[in-house]
């Protein structure tokens, strides 16, 4: 046979097997229904629902002063950050109310607060913060400190006969913040993107892993092995079929939910986005392929993949920023394709950058993916020899 003919046969086999895998997938009605749910409704609910910034922190106030200043200060704690939960009659009531967990903090304003501010005596308000959820507690305390600091600053200026207006200028730095790529800090954009990536990851790892183990468990892989197919021709169609399936679902999520409903911009090249998404899916599938070669049945492969997928989902920087992770986690996560893909996806969609900015991330993802995949393929071949 001429090499050209061999290539034709090789491709034809691949196509036939890919079609078989697609048919097998499409026949599983509950799985397909769930795939559609995961990339539509689930993206919608999550994109809409998650707010990582401080919202609605329940605030109780014990105001011993009941003056102009104290009321002014309290009025500065407002929605969307703080929710006023009422005034306390006794100072010690605060602990009991916090125990119940409905409110998060108690602001305690001392008597003679107003007098002290006017005369310039040092004074301080007290804040009790529930830190059972430490980051949230710290964030609320930080906002409160900002509000109190600003209020204090203004009263200093007023006391010294200065105002922030231009008639009597004061030397101070005026902060001018420009938030780029997402001016309104619209959280639905990031949350829907990160949820989409979460879903792609889960499906990309689990679908091929379960499919490969199934053949092994049932013994149908023996039938395939006695056919003229090589191990690569057995494995590759599964990955190709699932990549196509997930790419289709991604398109549905992007054009069916994220763009029309949330207004997520697509500032960069769509072709680039989808080709790098395909690379990401294949790279992530490498984890599943590898897991399928070290396990014997679906129960094992499920546990094995979940063991790895949970850290990938939580520590790759789609849930909390990479900047929060300790150094050893950042090194460990260099092995996670998702860690690079989040930069690529937000880069193309929100920043509108091209391959010239993303090549290093794409290269790293490709290298990690190729090693995972190559290793999985090597193990897959070996177990049949």
């Amino acid at each position, binding site marked *: 046979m001429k090499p050209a003919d061999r290539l034709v046969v090789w491709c034809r086999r691949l196509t036939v097997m890919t079609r078989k895998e697609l048919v097998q997938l499409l026949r*599983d009605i*509950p*799985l397909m229904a769930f795939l559609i749910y*995961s990339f539509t409704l689930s993206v919608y*609910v*999550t994109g*809409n*629902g*998650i*707010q*990582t*910034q401080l919202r609605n922190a329940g605030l109780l106030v014990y105001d011993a002063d009941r003056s102009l200043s104290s009321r002014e200060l309290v009025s500065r704690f407002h929605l969307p950050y703080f929710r006023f939960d009422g005034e306390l009659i006794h100072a010690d009531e605060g602990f009991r109310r916090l125990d*119940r*967990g409905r409110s*998060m903090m108690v602001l305690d304003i001392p008597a003679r607060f107003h007098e002290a501010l006017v005369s*310039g005596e040092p004074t301080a308000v*007290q*804040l009790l*913060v529930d*830190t*059972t959820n*430490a980051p949230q*507690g710290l964030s609320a305390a930080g906002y409160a*400190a*900002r509000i109190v600091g600003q209020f*204090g*600053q203004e*009263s*200093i200026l007023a*006391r*010294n006969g200065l105002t922030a207006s231009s008639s009597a200028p*004061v*030397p*101070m*730095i*005026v*902060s*001018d*913040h*420009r*938030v*780029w790529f*997402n001016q309104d*800090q*619209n959280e639905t954009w*990031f949350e829907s993107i990160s949820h989409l990536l979460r879903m792609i990851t889960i499906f990309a790892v*689990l679908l091929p892993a*379960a*499919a490969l183990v199934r053949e092994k468990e049932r013994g149908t892989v023996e039938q395939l092995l006695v056919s003229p197919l090589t191990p690569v021709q057995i494995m590759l169609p599964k990955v190709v079929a699932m990549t196509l399936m997930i790419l289709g679902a991604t398109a549905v999520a992007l054009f069916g939910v994220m763009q029309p409903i949330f207004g997520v911009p697509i500032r960069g090249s769509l072709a680039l986005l989808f080709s790098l998404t395909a690379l990401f899916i294949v790279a992530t599938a490498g984890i599943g392929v590898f897991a399928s070669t070290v*396990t014997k049945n*679906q129960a*094992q*492969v499920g546990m094995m993949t*979940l*063991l790895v997928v949970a850290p990938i989902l939580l*520590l790759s920087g789609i*849930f909390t920023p990479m*900047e929060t992770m300790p150094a050893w986690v950042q090194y460990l996560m260099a092995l996670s394709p998702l860690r690079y893909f989040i930069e690529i996806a937000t880069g193309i969609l*929100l920043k509108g*950058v091209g391959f010239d900015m993303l090549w290093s991330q794409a290269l790293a993802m490709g290298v990690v993916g190729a090693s995972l995949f190559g290793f999985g393929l090597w193990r897959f071949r070996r177990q049949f020899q």
Partner: protein
Amino acid sequence: MNLRRVAAVASKEWREVTRDRMFLLLAFVMPAIWMFVFGYGLVLDVEHISFVVVDRDHSALSRDYLYRFYQSRYFDFQEALEGEGDADVWLQSGRARAVIIVPEKFQERLLSGQPAEVQTLIDGTFPLRADITKSYVIAINNAFNHELLVDFLARTRGLSRSEAQRRTSPLGIEVRYLYNEEVRSTWSTVPALIMFSLMVGSPLLTALGVVREKETGSIYNIYSATVTRLEFLVGKLIPYVMISAVNVAVLWLMAVLLFAVPFKGSLWLFIASSVLFVLTSTGIGLVVSLLVSTQQAALIITVVVSTVPTILFSGLIVPVSSLSRASQFQAHLFPGMYYTNITRGTFLQNVGLAVLWTDILALAIYAVVLGTIGYHLFTKRPRT
């Protein structure tokens, strides 16, 4: 219900589990590994935000101002740029998350008593990070402003520095942190991680329980046997509930001994609600297993159903109170949130039944509802 038949089903299931060494190992090792990795790894202090500066003033004061950013552990200085033009590239490539631009005449304006505008460009792709970056910048600016004001008053009013300081004594804020006095993020994540490990791991244990028998055909032995529906389901569940119960104990010990999280509440309350929670989490897997016809579908659906709401809607990191209305509703539909309240409450707050009874009741209702659904989904006379 004939207890001997339940025991027979349970012992058959138990043998199947113990025969599969790798499954057995993973069932016990997985929650512990997660606890270890996330307990040490899921730290939530945003530090080392990379930034570049454009200093158009090149004065002593602008250097003094920027020095505060260089010194801060929250910021990681990358490079000083010549012009604003390069700033785009730094933000777009993700190598810097913020750009600080000090204008011309920064020193001149401030020393002559005029305000000066410092521009900060922030990468807004991740709103949480953008928000935190902004608040760090404001904190540094405020501290700097206070010193400028002291200097200004001392110079213009002819006051001594200490007098100027006294006149500008800032309004203090004394913050007292309750329940987690040193605000260690491990103290609040570790109790929630007990919930996470059980909620994500346990459903998978049972997920393949029934569907595997359907796929291999061994379910026909059950169909033709005298064992009733209820006996079969209870027997199936027992080994996995036992595994998860052991895991609760291991996770509790890890939390107390390894992470030194104080356990202030009632141990009995914790144990009782943990048993309820284990029933619901394993029950979720069983119900999925009854609904689908392939193991592949059971695996994926269980993983998505148990992982996604647990990460997002159970109060692990994002508090339920800051979710939108619709998501809060969704959070209440999953058992994870209730058990998070219970673990945090018993570990850190020492609150008792008086506060936690609603959460415990919710878990109990959940267990009953799952049991009823499972009972009705499983039929010994399938239509096909």
